[in-house]
């Protein structure tokens, strides 16, 4: 299944969608399939400022615990409570209702390192 073309992708398997200075981020389907059943989601609090490369929080699965990394600089404006309450949303709808955080982008320079859906899908196929 191909990844949606309306967003960018990181090498650590986050997706990021930016409109103006408003960003949304989650994990890709490939990432959640590798994690297997997600059991716990804890993102940093609203108001937390972060730089590209910082951890935005943790996602735990039956198998492992994994950090979620920011590809850009910004400040968290919203955390997906539905995903914290029901972590299986990440497995069932990673590109939609299973989003993790919304944020205000303070520097989008890191976006240049992200790739488009076609490139990402090719990378994970290897």
């Amino acid at each position, binding site marked *: 299944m191909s990844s949606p073309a309306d967003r960018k992708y990181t090498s650590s398997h986050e997706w990021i969608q930016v409109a103006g200075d408003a960003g949304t981020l989650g994990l890709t389907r490939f990432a959640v399939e590798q994690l*297997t059943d997600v059991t716990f989601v804890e993102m940093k609090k609203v108001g937390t400022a972060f730089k590209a490369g910082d951890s935005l929080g943790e996602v735990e699965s039956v198998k492992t615990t994994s950090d979620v990394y920011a590809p850009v600089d910004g400040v968290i404006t919203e955390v997906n409570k539905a995903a914290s309450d029901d972590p299986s949303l990440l497995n069932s709808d990673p590109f939609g209702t299973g989003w993790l955080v919304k944020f205000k982008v303070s520097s989008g320079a890191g976006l240049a390192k992200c790739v488009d859906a076609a490139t990402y899908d090719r990378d994970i196929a290897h």
Partner: protein
Amino acid sequence: MHESPLHAFHLKHNAQMVPFAGWTMPIRYAGIVEEHKQVRSSGGIFDVSHMGRVKVSGRHARRLLERLCSRRVHDMQPGQCRYSLMCNDRGGVRDDVIVYRHDDDEFTVVVNGANREKMLGHFEQVRAAGDLSVKIDDTTMKTAMVAIQGPKVMGFVGKFSTEIPTLKRYRFTVKNLVVAKLTVSRTGYTGEDGIEVILPAGMVDMALKLILKDVDMDAPDALVKPAGLGSRDSLRLEAGMPLYGHELGEEINALSCGVDFAISLDKDTGEFAETFIGMEALKKVQENGGPRVRLVGLAFEGRRTPRQDMPVKSGEREVGKVTSGCLSPTLDRPIAMALVNADVAAPGTRLQVDAGRAVLEGEVVSLPFYKAPKG
């Protein structure tokens, strides 16, 4: 990387394949939690062909196994299997195994996949040291092994063979098909009733059809569905069963692992008296008040999962390490096994796990975490 004789079966059922102990094996099909619940409520079929299957036969076969096994072998009946440890001379655990007794001087030993080469070397070394007349034949590559586990398994297996449901726990029978032999034992590693089957590698498709003839594994309400190594791990953890590399290891004293039933320190008395490797070291530990470290079950508040090697604390004092953990699908709370100091091993003791960014509050509970209701 070895491919199991069930490789095509895994791909057909959309397995996610992962490297495991030199094999490429399915970690999951539908999902680890879904498979776990399927096994607890009905039935699942696991490919465990990566485990080593070693035929040990000849005039001194029993004597070799008495030297290796922490339990007696001489009193096993043909058709009986027995769980045992095999230790190093310091009393650490080289492996845990199931011994099948086919006949007076013919046995099969099932060893952990990751330990197969090591244990073959160990068998040969002990054989040579005692100048024993034993043939050691690694049949792993020419056979397959599947486990079919769950409360509804014995019901439909009876359609394939009326004998199998009459087997007692830890007994096995050999079913002769036209050109093949199936070794079927009432054993498992999930805490559920069920069977494990050893069969020739080339007979997998035919044998599965015979055993599961009325089961359409793709149907949503199938009695038996494929289950991967992921659910096998969470099932055995709920059942309080130790796993080599986690609760068992060369540096972990056998008396620490919560499997005292599998250690016969009086094996050197009576008829057929034999000393097993590691026995002297274990006796010393026992005489000096027992092991300093004990395997315990821990149950936690919250939703975070303790992981192997995380420190266990009693307040500020580090008292041990987590050996395995998961969010228990049956109990719906995080559970773990841990090796901790004997003075904090009593059920009810409050302990904490240091998960780096969080502290998990837990309590020692008796094992197993889950016991199947009597059927």
